[in-house]
C-alpha cells in the first residue's frame, strides 16, 4: 500500500513541478517537490519504504528529465541514506531535521547533477550555479518543505497506524 501511495503522491507532484513550478523560477532555481517528499517520508520513524520511494521518485523524474540516466537515482538514494542516518542518530525527529536535510538534499542533488553534466562535456560555472541555482532552489524548497512535511506526516500515520515508536 505504501509503495502504491508513492505513485499516487509523486505523479501529481511531478505534474505540478514540470507544469507549473518550472515556469516560476526564482532567479534560476526551481523547487524539487519529489526530493522534499522523499525526505519528509524518510524522516518519519514509522516508515519502512524510504528506499522504495526514492527509487520510484527517481525513475519518474528520470522519465521526464533529460538528465543522464542514474543521476536522480544516485542523488535520491544518497539523500535517503543520509536521512535514515539522521533518523537513527536523532532520537526525536523535529521539524529542524527536515529543514537541515532540505539544505543537504538540495546540495547533494545539485552537486551530482552538476558533476554528471560536467562529465558529459557541459560548461561548469561554480559561482553562478551556487548563487543563481543552488541558493534559490534551497529557498524554494524551504517554502514547500513545511506543508509537505505536515502532509506526508499525516499520510505516514495513516499508512502505519500500528507501528511501534522505537526504531528496530
Amino acid at each position: 500500500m505504501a509503495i502504491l501511495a508513492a505513485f499516487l503522491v509523486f505523479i501529481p507532484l511531478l505534474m505540478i513541478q514540470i507544469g507549473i513550478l518550472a515556469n516560476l523560477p526564482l532567479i534560476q532555481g526551481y523547487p524539487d517537490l519529489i526530493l522534499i517528499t522523499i525526505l519528509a517520508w524518510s524522516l518519519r520513524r514509522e516508515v519502512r519504504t524510504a528506499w522504495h520511494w526514492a527509487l520510484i521518485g527517481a525513475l519518474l523524474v528520470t522519465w521526464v528529465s533529460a538528465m543522464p540516466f542514474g543521476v536522480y537515482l544516485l542523488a535520491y538514494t544518497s539523500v535517503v541514506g543520509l536521512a535514515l542516518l539522521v533518523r537513527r542518530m536523532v532520537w526525536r525527529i523535529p521539524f529542524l531535521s527536515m529543514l537541515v536535510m532540505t539544505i543537504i538534499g538540495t546540495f547533494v542533488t545539485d552537486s551530482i547533477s552538476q558533476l554528471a553534466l560536467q562529465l558529459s562535456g557541459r560548461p561548469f560555472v561554480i559561482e553562478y550555479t551556487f548563487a543563481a541555482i543552488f541558493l534559490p532552489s534551497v529557498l524554494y524548497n524551504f517554502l514547500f518543505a513545511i506543508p509537505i512535511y505536515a502532509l506526508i506526516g499525516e499520510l505516514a500515520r495513516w499508512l502505519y497506524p500500528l507501528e511501534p515508536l522505537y526504531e528496530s
Partner: protein
Amino acid sequence: MSTASRNLQTIVFVLIAVGLIALALGGYLNPFSRILLNPLIELQTWVYSRYQVAQNVLRAPQDIARLQQRNLQLEAQVSQLQAQIIELQQQLTEARILSALVDFARANPENRYQAAAVIGRDPSPFLRYILINRGSDDNIRRGMPVVTQQGLVGRIDAVTANAARVQLITDSGAVVNAKIQPSGTQAVLKGQVSGDLLLDLIPQGAPIEVGNLVLTSGLGGGYPPNIVIGQISGIRSQPQDIFQSATVQSVVDFNQLEIVLVIVNFRPVNLEPLIPQGSQP
C-alpha cells in the same frame, strides 16, 4: 332666537366667508396664512418622517435579507463572467498565436509543420528542455527542428507516442551552426548555463556589429538554413585571441512559449559514420 335674527346671522357669515375668500384670492391673507400654516407644515413633515423611520425599521430585516440574497446572486454572476472573460482572453491569445503560426507556415511553404502545445519543462534547473504534446504518432522524430513564428526554438531530443522533449537552443548542451548577416560570417551558437546565447568561433577581423542578424547556416545538417535566431547584443574581442565571440539576444521569448511548430519534413544529417573512430572522445 327669531327667524329674522338667524337669517341675519347667516347673511353676515356668508358675507364674512365671501369676504375672506375674496381677500385670500386677492392675496391679502398670505402673511396670515403663512404664520398659521408654517407650524402645521413643520409638524406634518415631522410626523411623516417619523412614520417613514418607523416603516424602515419594520421593513429593514426583510430588505436586508433580500439585498443580501441579491448581492450573493450578483457576486456569483460576476465571478462567472470573470471566469468567462479569462477563458475568452486565453482563447483569444491562443487564436492570435495560431494565426501568427499559420502566417509563418504560409510564408515558408517549403517546410511542413506540426503545431504542438508546450505542456511542461524539465524539472532540473541545470537543463533547458520543454515537453510538447505531439509525438511519434504525429510523425515527430528525434532531431527535427522546432520553431515559432519568431524564430528558432530548438530541436526534438526524445520522442514518445504522444509527447516529445525539445532541447532549447539556450540549453548549455545546445550547439547551432550559425551565420551573421549581412556579412555572412560563419560562427557557432552555444547555449549557456545562465540561459543566454553565446556566438563563438567568429574569426578575428570579421565585420560584425551589434544589431547584426544571426541565422542558422545549415552547416552540419542539424538545422535547416536561414531560420532566424536573434540579434547580436554585444561583442567580445581580444586582440590576442584567435576568435571573437558575441552575445546574442534571441527573438524568441523562451519563458512565454505556449505553442511551437515542429518542421516535420526535415531530417537531420547523421555525421557520426563520417567521423573517424580515433577522434571521438
